[in-house]
């Protein structure tokens, strides 16, 4: 199949590649760019495990062709740590609040939460729950994911985070 030339930025790095027009962005990232952090969970856009950031939007990369990312700037979980390699506020929040178990939904969940906090730096619990409704988790029951995002929001905003009493 004839291939298309694309140029894009992934995690701050310029990338050029040849892709088939039908190649999905998730397969391009995982198989051609070896960025295996984003996962495939449903193939139908429901689970959000493949969520990446594309030009300041959360995008389900299993519902996006790689050619659609031509010229775009993409951030994946591999680009989420702090520049010094330490865990970013969201990554730390997920760990501290036990917001993950099997880890399969986590990269997509963190990318989605990242966009959510950019657009709404101090969300209510309801806003968090609605904001991550496109990302499924089978392990955690979401309670601790909500806390993880609250933890990150507090850290980013420099406000105190108080874990609910047990």
């Amino acid at each position, binding site marked *: 199949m004839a291939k298309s030339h694309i140029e894009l930025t992934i995690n701050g790095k310029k990338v050029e590649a040849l892709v*088939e027009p*039908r*190649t999905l962005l998730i*397969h391009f990232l*995982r*198989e051609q760019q*070896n*960025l*295996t*952090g*984003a*996962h*495939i*969970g*449903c*193939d*139908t856009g*429901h*689970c959000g*495990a493949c969520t990446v950031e594309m030009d300041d939007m959360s995008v389900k990369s299993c519902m996006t062709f790689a050619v659609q990312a031509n010229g775009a700037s993409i951030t*994946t*979980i*591999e680009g*989420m*740590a702090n520049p010094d390699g330490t*865990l970013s506020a969201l*990554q*730390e929040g*997920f*760990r*501290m609040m*036990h917001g*993950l*178990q*099997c*880890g*399969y*939904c*986590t*990269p997509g969940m*963190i990318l989605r939460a990242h966009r959510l906090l950019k657009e709404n730096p101090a969300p209510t619990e309801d806003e*968090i*729950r*609605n904001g*991550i*409704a*496109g*990302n*499924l*988790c*089978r*392990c*955690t*029951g*979401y*309670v*601790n*994911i*909500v806390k993880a995002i609250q933890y990150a929001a507090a850290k980013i905003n420099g406000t105190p985070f108080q874990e609910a009493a*047990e």
Partner: protein
Amino acid sequence: MNDQTKIDQDRAERTEKLQGMGCKRKRVEDVRFTQGKGSYVDDLKLPGMLFGDFVRSPHAHARIKSIDTSRAKALPGVVAVLTAADLKPLGLHYMPTLAGDVQAVLAEEKVLFQNQEVAFVIAEDRYIASDATELVDVEYEALPCIVDPFKSMDADAPILREDIQDKMEGAHGPRKHPNHIFEWTIGDKEATDAVFANADVTIKEMLVDHRTHPSPLETCQSVASFDKVKGELTLWGTFQAPHVIRTVVSLISGLPEHKIHVIAPDIGGGFGNKVGAYAGYVCSVVGSIVLGVPVKWVEDRMENLSTTSFARDYHMTTELAATKDGKIQAMRVHVLADHGAFDACADPSKWPAGFMNICTGSYDIPTAHLAVDGVYTNKASGGVAYRCSFRVTEAVFAIERAVELLADKLGMDAAELRIKNFIKPEQFPYKSALGWEYDSGDYHTAMKKAMDTIGYKELREEQAQKREAFKRGETREIMGIGISFFTEIVGAGPAKNCDILGIAMFDSAEIRIHPTGSVIARMGTKSQGQGHETTYAQIIATEIGIPADDIMIEEGNTDTAPYGLGTYGSRSTPVAGAATAVAARKIKAKAQMIAAHMLEVHEGDLEWDVDRFRVKGLPEKFKTMKEIAWAAYNAPPPNMEPGLEAVNYYEPPNMTYPFGAYFCVMDIDVDTGVAKTRRFYALDDCGTRINPMIIEGQVHGGLTEAFACAMGQEIRYDEHGNVMGASFMDFFLPTAVETPNWETDFTVTPSPHHPIGAKGVGESPHVGGVPCFSNAVNDAYAFLGAGHIQMPHDAWRLWTVGQKLGLHT
């Protein structure tokens, strides 16, 4: 500060540094998972790797007239197309199931369920493989199908399994019909019937635990790589039981077991889905052996939901007999079990209905009888334990719905009826009428704590007022209070009654202390998100006094880990956790001898103190475990082997019996059928608590899966055997929006036979949660005379309940 305070403080500091049992240690796994650095099967990329994809049957039951692969093979990039004709000469067109049946790898003469595997296309990439599946021409002759299990054994029912139609003796005794798999009975039928004949009060209800699917977010997948020169096979896969898979592959392929390297890397959730052996695994192996290059197989979601391992589908006629003051005298249950086209239940060999005989629950029921008939239908095979020990969710659903029905009939409060019939603390160990010996329990304390915390009395008062208001027409909302008091049976299991393919269900741990005092330990289990790398290290830390951060846990590599039976049925902590403690104690015993030599005292003069052996009465004379480790490699006592390591294969003396008290408060709009969970309170008693943070996480997750099962999740078939809704569009997985907030609590009743008293917790919330939700819904409608309402309780079905009751005017 006096001396004793100083000593206590010093000890507390050293204990805290260990991050051992009982502390909320943050997870080791999360460092990689939060950075996208987990390594799951589909992340694997090997040079020359090909990709396999299945051609699947559109029919539920059809004869295969012909298969023409020529158009597919002609597609550039296609390397091979396997059919049953290719596998048959190798004896691989069928594979054994864990339940003593055989299962088609690729359909030979007939297909028996929709989406059954018919051919396996191997191509250079997943897109070409997918294209080529469309080019395999299969000619079918459709046959009448069986969807309703109650019609399976009709005289004129079509015979499904022609491969075994003359075999009237199955793996579990005689078969009554060609579509019958087994009949399994336990208990005293005569005595039970006699109690029912003379009882004051009886109830009888058909309770359906409907067909659903574990549906982990990562589907089933494998990569097989056969080295023709060495004759060695490496198989990476989503395996909850990697050692068992290695043995199965050896048995069916004929490859010697030491030349098979099975590796289960990070697994994206299992919940029972990844226990069995699937056609995809076998085809990737055959493909690699035939072609000599690695072959990857990855299920898509539709394939996952419609082919690999459904759960439940138990149709349970449940009866209780009681005195008029509410003492339960007997239980009688008949189950019609729909096993689909092949009996591929993942149960220990001798238990074709799993541990369904735990169905007398938390109650002292002196007499009981259980009969289970398994039948074939034109549906996918499986019958796995979806986040529960074998058939325990079904059993607990039966008893916990039944006691509510009995309470309704007696006009008694459902909590009061339960308390009246609880097994009393002094009755443990308790021998149940259906053969189990419950190791421990304190049900009354747990129930009282739960009722006090939730404010049970006040809730009932509120409900009574709401019901009156509803009758007066002041509200269209009804309120339900769901209760579930469950007892699980987990940690399979004693060798005398539990094996898989003849291998006793022990588990194992191997611990090595390095000279510098850091540790690597390996287990026969395999985490799929449970956090084993974190919690096993906590057990070792407490046992031998080395900080958990200096202990690496490794699972899933069958070359390095000791043989184990894997992770499912909440068996990791009860069995491998016990092995870990025992292996650690062996090390500690040797360390004590080394310390005695180093300190020039008798072993008996030493006592253990957190992370060191010290001389009794001389606390300043001690050797830390770290110092002892160095000495073990450097200057062990004369005549002692150097080194400091131990392995233990633990054969549990009994299973463990976690229990819990759950309460759910639900408000339902009778006009829309929308049910809102106002509160859900879960009190769990899993014995000794290793990591409270992880336990709470497990409870949250299990409750969410229980919520899904009870309130909407279902694998449904139409009358033609078409699977309805095998995608996340139709199959209900709750999002953060629908999922209720969870309140957790606990009591601690340690297991008397487990080295650290732990019982397992991962599945309790699912087992206890499903009946709790269903009871809440049923309780809400009970005053309107609805009778038993079957699950799942989605809004549409609850709307139809209101419709039938004439509530919609």
